[in-house]
């Protein structure tokens, strides 16, 4: 009996863990069935063959998107609103307790989805726009254009990204606009390299030669002939880069150079509440968990897309 009791905490933890996983599986199955039912023809077929991890990932991303978009309506309090004493424990009003200034932790996590994810999305999109366009031009035109763009990308990539961003942020100040531009510049070369490689495989095809011989311009070649054939790996890469950008923003915020207070942001929330860890509280781990859950979810979806685009379907 005594032996069993000493094992109880471990058993309950394991039990809870199993429960969470089971819940995740059930949610993914239901969500997948829902998507299959709702989506039209082709989409339903794609979803039916999708693995559970992919539908779980899609579900989490959807939840984050909804939380971000409808943050003011979902969150019970404002993100900068002081509603309690510092580090107040959770009660029926504050589901996750309060932070170091007495702001509602739950509301800030919700607003954090909007700020952190929103900025990461904007920065990644911008990086993709710059990188992909440059990559496509380099692959299609070749010659000196390829060299100039390629070497510029090498220069940016040769500087460690965190150091480079810290440097640029301390020069230009850390406003949200500057933050997005800097991150986009740092990540664009990676997109450039991938796009150039993928498009490089496409430009040697006979149909590109046929289009060139027809007298088509650069823009038509890129838009109609090359881009549709390089989309799949680019979309997958978007998901992956999004995770890196996201982690970089969280990291910068943790260092105090990213999103500035009182705007809620998961990275800085981890830092602000870090002291609580020594008292055995899990509060600082909640925004950290939000970061890792999204990263895992996005990677699940990206894995699935890579698998689909790689042609390894058997």
């Amino acid at each position, binding site marked *: 009996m005594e032996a069993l009791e000493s094992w109880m905490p471990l058993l309950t933890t394991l039990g809870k863990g199993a429960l969470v996983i089971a819940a995740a599986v059930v949610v993914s199955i239901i969500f997948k069935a829902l998507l299959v039912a709702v989506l039209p023809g082709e989409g339903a077929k794609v979803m039916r*063959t999708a693995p559970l991890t992919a539908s779980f990932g899609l579900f989490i991303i959807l939840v984050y998107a909804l939380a971000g978009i409808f943050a003011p309506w979902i969150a019970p309090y404002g993100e900068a609103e002081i509603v309690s004493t510092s580090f107040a424990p959770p009660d029926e009003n504050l589901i996750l307790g309060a932070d170091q200034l007495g702001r509602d932790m739950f509301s800030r996590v919700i607003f954090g989805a909007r700020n952190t994810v929103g900025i990461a999305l904007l920065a990644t999109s911008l990086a993709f726009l710059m990188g992909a366009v440059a990559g496509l031009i380099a692959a299609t035109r070749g010659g000196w254009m390829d060299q100039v763009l390629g070497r510029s990308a090498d220069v940016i990539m040769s500087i460690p990204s965190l150091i480079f961003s810290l440097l640029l942020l301390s020069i230009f100040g850390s406003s949200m606009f500057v933050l997005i531009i800097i991150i986009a510049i740092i990540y664009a070369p990676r997109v450039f390299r991938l796009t150039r490689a993928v498009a490089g495989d496409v430009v040697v*095809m*006979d*149909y590109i*030669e046929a289009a*060139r011989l027809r*007298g088509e311009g650069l823009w038509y070649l890129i838009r*109609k002939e090359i881009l*549709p054939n390089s989309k799949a790996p680019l979309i997958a890469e978007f998901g992956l880069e999004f995770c890196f950008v996201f982690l970089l923003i969280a990291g910068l915020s943790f260092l105090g150079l990213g999103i500035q207070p009182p705007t809620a942001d998961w990275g800085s929330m981890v830092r602000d509440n870090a002291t609580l860890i020594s008292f055995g509280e899990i509060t600082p781990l909640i925004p950290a968990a939000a970061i890792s859950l999204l990263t895992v979810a996005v990677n699940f979806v990206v894995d699935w897309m890579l698998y689909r685009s790689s042609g390894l379907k*058997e």
Partner: protein
Amino acid sequence: MTDASEHKDLLLKIRDLRIEGYSDESWVEIVHGINLDLHRGEVLGLIGESGAGKSTIGLAAMGFTRDGCRISGGSVNFDGIELTKQSKRDLRKLRGVRIAYVAQSAAASFNPAHKLIDQHTEAPVHYNVKSRVDSQEDAKELYEKLRLPNPQEIGFRYPHQVSGGQLQRAMTAMAMACRPDLIIFDEPTTALDVTTQIEVLAAIRDIVEQFNTAAIYITHDLAVVAQMADRIKVLLKGDEVEEADTATMLSSPQEEYTKSLWAVRSFRKPQKSRPEASSSEPPVVSVDGVDASYGKLKVLNDVSFDVYRGMTVAVVGESGSGKSTTARCITGLLPPTKGTIRFNGQELPSSYKNRTTDQLRQAQMIYQMADTALNPRIKICDIIGRPAQFYSGLNGAPLKTRVEELLDLIELEPSQYYNRYPPELSGGQKQRIGIARALAAEPSFIICDEVTSALDQLVAEGILKLLDRLQSTLDLAYMFITHDLATVRSIADEVVVMKEGRVVEQGPKDTMFTPPHHDYTDLLLSSVPEMDPNWLTQLLEERGV
């Protein structure tokens, strides 16, 4: 060779073999109950179009199926062993030792990182058939039997250091390494030039005879199978059409389908001749003393020929002879280093970048591989519609009408194909779309680069007839690049023979096909397999090999 006797022991017995393939989330039967008997020392030819299940059956004879396929019924009995019931481990012991496989592309099947002889000795050493030293000696012996040059040394080269025909023979030697009872040849000469094909065919036939090995010879080329096989089995869409001794099959095929296969090579169009010298009309395309090089390597040397309106000029030669390079010079993709290209008497800028839209429109191209020539992500209507829109500025309803007209012209039902994507079409249909795209520009000259060599014979004949019909209705000039002389015979008006970047001989087709020829033309012509089963034997005697 031809007296396949019944009293030889039965080596392979396949009964009611059914194979399913996985597509669109369900299993579909692709081989519907095939029976097959093979005796020791006998060669069975499997022929049929692509999709007939030839390779699938060939692989099943080893107890193997490709990914996404499974044997769903029937039995494959190899010398008393039921292959469908063997474990993967037992099957693996059989393969390479008692059953061997020779693939279509030796270049793709050899590991480029290892020497030929090391790959040769791998199987015998692994299965403890021979020691490494014995096996190496044996390899050299086999190389000699297969008439590879320098048999003592050639094994120590890497695959990229020997030619395609030599590689295919080295692969046959490798299949022989453990003296298997059965070898499966899956289109071993399809990727080779006619002149190289002869050597490989002769080598394969000799060695199979010497070791009394049974073989299944898979091909789509009837003339080739006539040389190699004792018996022939004709397949269509996973069903057997008929089976008979080679001589019987060639002289009196029973089924309609077989007869149509036999008749394919009979298509001939009447030969047209050039307009009178007195008429002042210049040739549509005139290639005049063209030299070209890739970097420092000179690939074309003083190439000259003319293509007149409404006529077909066939450019023939082995791979590497500069046929396609000449086409690249005409289209302006590879500016010549010397010489000029004239179009209707007017000199063209050497690079396509400097040509006017109208000059570009006049010369169109049809490619060998329709798979890579059509963008898989663009709808048929846009693929065909784009040149019409680009050159004639058509849009909206007139454009739609024009595309439908073009689809009609290439004998594809517009309503059915208008909104589809290239991957949904068969090889022949894709090639037709490629033709429609060229026609959409309303050209006066079309370069056909090996347009039929990736297609089955029946489909290829359809394409040739279509091209011929289009030529007479639209008064087109064709430059027809090919290595297949049967195609030349059926469609050409004039022939240009190329070798190593030079024009060896040129003239009207009839003159070219009647002796005396230039030595090289003669070699090319005599190397084209004929349906006569004794052709190879006679030819080898004549050449004194």
